[in-house]
């Protein structure tokens, strides 16, 4: 198992480096950042001055290694827009996005696990079909539209939750709910198929033969085994969610990393865009690594690999 984990860790570092190179090239290849910063009215001399000030006149490779070296020391450059270190901008906004992601995955698991288990117990019945229909609906729902519907319904008509910004913890409820929709279909299907498989297995038959109650069989034996892969996938889904929070944060005006990224993209603030892409990629890579480790620890068959 140690060699498996080691190989996985090396792979994670390689993937991280590749994404780093990609995100750097991306922000340099498609346009001249200096032109974007200077704005349409700037003269050629202004642009040249900006280019020198931000070090954009140096060779691309030098810029890249400088950036990586500085990033490794925690210096992510300065924002063109805020005139402030990017690391500071991210530090103040990351907790909001991470909280939102955790609320989202919490909602998703709290909704998907019971429904998936119920569908498996009622396999093939109308209840099963209805629950799987919920998965299909969740998959087809445009997140930003659902957000607007919830804002109209719960925020404006019922006035249960705030519709904009973040004055207290209740501000996370609606955005978290919207975010959870992206993960619910996959988690529900996985729980259902895992439960169906578990319920047919030998240890469940043994438990039945021992005369254990149905509740004990379902909850203690089958659900525990079915839940393991769900936990691992939930970690990966959390990574996708943090990436998807850019849409949700801009609809709800939540001052998180996603909102920062959207603002920086529309105002050509490349150092911030680059740093957020890198940050989200690293978080995702870390979470998948964690998921793989969880799987390896939970599944004895993988340990030999």
């Amino acid at each position: 198992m140690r060699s498996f984990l080691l190989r996985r860790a090396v792979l994670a570092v390689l993937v991280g480096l590749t994404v780093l190179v990609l995100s750097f090239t991306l922000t340099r290849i498609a346009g001249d950042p200096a032109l974007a910063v200077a704005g349409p009215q700037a003269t050629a001399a202004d642009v040249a001055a900006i280019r020198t000030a931000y070090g954009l006149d140096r060779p691309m490779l030098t810029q890249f290694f400088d950036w990586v070296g500085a990033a490794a020391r925690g210096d992510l450059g300065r924002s063109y827009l805020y005139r402030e270190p990017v690391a500071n901008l991210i530090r103040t906004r990351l907790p909001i996005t991470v909280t939102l992601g955790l609320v989202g995955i919490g909602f998703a698991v709290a909704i998907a696990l019971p429904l998936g288990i119920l569908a498996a117990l009622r396999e093939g019945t109308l209840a099963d079909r209805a629950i799987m229909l919920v998965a299909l609906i969740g998959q087809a729902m445009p997140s930003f539209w659902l957000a607007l519907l919830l804002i109209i319904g719960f925020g404006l008509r019922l006035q249960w939750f705030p519709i904009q910004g973040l004055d207290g913890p209740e501000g996370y409820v609606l955005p978290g709910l919207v975010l959870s929709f992206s993960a619910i279909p996959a988690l529900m299907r996985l729980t259902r198929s895992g439960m169906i498989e578990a319920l047919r297995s030998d240890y469940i038959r043994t438990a039945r033969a021992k005369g254990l109650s149905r509740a004990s069989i379902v909850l203690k034996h089958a659900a525990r085994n079915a839940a393991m892969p769900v936990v691992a996938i939930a970690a990966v889904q959390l990574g996708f969610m943090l990436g998807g929070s850019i849409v949700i944060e801009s609809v709800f005006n939540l001052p998180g990393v996603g909102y920062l990224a959207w603002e920086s993209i529309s105002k050509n603030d490349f150092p911030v865009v680059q740093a957020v892409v890198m940050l989200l990629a690293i978080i995702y890579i870390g979470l998948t690594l964690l998921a793989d480790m969880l799987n390896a620890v939970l599944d004895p068959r993988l340990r030999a690999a």
Partner: protein
Amino acid sequence: MRLRDLSTGLGALIVGVTIVAALIGPSLVPHDPFAQDLMHRLVPPAWMPNGTEAHLLGTDQLGRDYLARLVYGARISLLIGVCAALTSGLIGTTLGVLGGFFGGRVDDLVMFAITCRLSVPLILVALAVVSLIGSSLTVVVLTLGLLLWDRFAVVARTTTMQVRTLDYVAAAQAAGASRAHVLLHEVLPNIAQHLVVVATLEVALAILLEAALSFLGLGVPAPLPSWGLMIAEGKDYMFFEPWVIMVPGVALFALVLGINLLGDGLRDLFGVARDA
């Protein structure tokens, strides 16, 4: 009739109606989707109070006919969905088949590419690229196409691995067929049904992503009536006129649901297992 057939039929119906609307709709609706009429702004749909028969789905904040824009928007959604899925299908299938067929180093490289692609935050990078190059239909299609190939690659790879060892591939190789011939004429046709199922998912995903990009103002440029853009434009009026976001939103939701229902039906028909 089984419930399954019913849902597949519903999916086919929704997709069929949308395709017909996209093809001939603009010539049936008696209004121009771009013509502004500032005297008749935000006219509600015909079935609501103050609605008129002249504008069945009402008009938007610039007095443009909502039905005309909705129908034209179907064209944009379908065009982007299908073209993006074709682009990503080409990339993903090529990578997946090569990795699955040759194994070893080639496969390691393909798996590495897939892992890298999954680590790239999708919406963020799509937004950044569109904003850097400038928004247009082509840019959105290419950006989504270059980003959405991972599932094609994963499925093409695993199915090719299963097909590779079968007798007819060995027979073709023994008969002296070239590698290219084996890949194109023996492997590809036998994994095609899996790829069709993936394609339905990807068309649906591309349509949703285009709408999200356009909603954030970095997708299809105005005044083109993308459904996502229509929702964004209606957002400022939704508190008093909720129908302005309901009309394009329901259309978007229904189309994506329809494509997914159809995809599920095809999955059953082909006997393709669902990967979670």
